[in-house]
């Protein structure tokens, strides 16, 4: 499950940004992999792909700061 999410997120990122390999624990905001245009699209993508509606309180930089963190957040929200 986690691996599947990570794989999909990696492929989403590479479609949007032209960057070399991103490590699962790289800070996407720090390293500039994700700016706010793409972070908005990331949220839209995750909601569609994993059939979620992310609550307002769960939308913040911290929950989506790395591939690891995204997978964790999506898994947590799916369980609810």
């Amino acid at each position: 499950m986690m691996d599947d999410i990570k794989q999909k997120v990696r492929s989403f990122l590479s479609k949007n940004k032209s960057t070399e390999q991103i490590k699962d624990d790289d800070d996407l905001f720090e390293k500039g992999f994700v700016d706010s245009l793409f972070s908005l699209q990331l949220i839209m993508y995750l909601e569609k792909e994993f059939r979620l509606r992310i609550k307002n309180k769960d939308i913040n930089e911290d929950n989506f700061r790395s591939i690891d963190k995204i997978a964790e957040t999506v898994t947590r929200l799916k369980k609810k």
Partner: protein
Amino acid sequence: MAEKIKCVVWDLDNTLWKGILAEDHSVILKPGIKEILDVLDQRGILQSVSSKNNHEDAMKKLGEFGIQQYFLYPQISWGSKAEAINIIAEKLNISLDTFAFVDDDITEREEVRFSHPEVLLIDANDIHSILDMERLNPVSITQDAKNRRILYQSEEQRKHEEESFTGSKEEFLKTLDMKLTLSKVVPGDLNRVEELTLRTHQLNSTGYTYSYEELTRLIDSEDHLFLIAGLKDRFGDYGKIGICLLEKQEDRYTVKLLLMSCRVMNKGIGTAFLIYCIKLAQSQNKDLFAEFLHTDRNRVMYITYKMMGFEEEGEEPGDTDDDSQQVLLKYTSKHHKDFPSYLDVKAPDC
């Protein structure tokens, strides 16, 4: 009050022209039609076609009449007209409650009414009063309105090019050569500012509207920075596409209003506006806040703020997914923010 109409969808047989094309190729345009199409176009109202016909024949006929250029994403097929209207609304990214549909056939109008009760239905017998209809008369007509159709046509070209582009989305944006200019609102901008506040719902942080007098006062106000954005790229000039009102107080700056035309969605314009505000606040050592009013349409804008590092102020934010709720956001991100690499930004010095 009902929304102003942004798009008129026309039937062809016995609506735009007399006769049925599939039966008789010598159909003629109804009198006055050209003038109606042209006036609506000048008012900045978009137009399209939903007709049950052979696509090629009908497009050829529109070309012969010299009116083909007025229609964006024409839907000519034997399928449902309600579905056709759906497709047009999606392509143009405008909501169905701003659509009008003109058809001589009551069955077609009823089919559209059944699926889309919010669409304004017009009987083809009434087309001569169409120009006088209140919902088809915009509050003011700006230069941006007159160019609107052409702007959508260049957008069609952009989309076409993007579909065949093989690199990443970011690389594609770089090829557009986008130039964003943020400048202080001047009196000549006020019609457009008013138009943007009335027309924009999705990418609008608060939905506040201001009277002409209030807007004039804001331009001169020492306590406010009132900015308007213009965008150009290699396909053309989008015109003035967004505004931002920043209130300056002793200890803090507050974004009172941030809005952008849906035409520039997914181009990083909101981001650029906010980054400018962040830089400005930081250079003056002020905290940056933003007012936000949830509506049923503007969630995208809320996500933009949150993912940029704005957090809700005050008590523990609950599951505030109700509509029409006002919140105050505070910028708390520790990350350094810079303008996106694919945008060339010109703005007043911080």
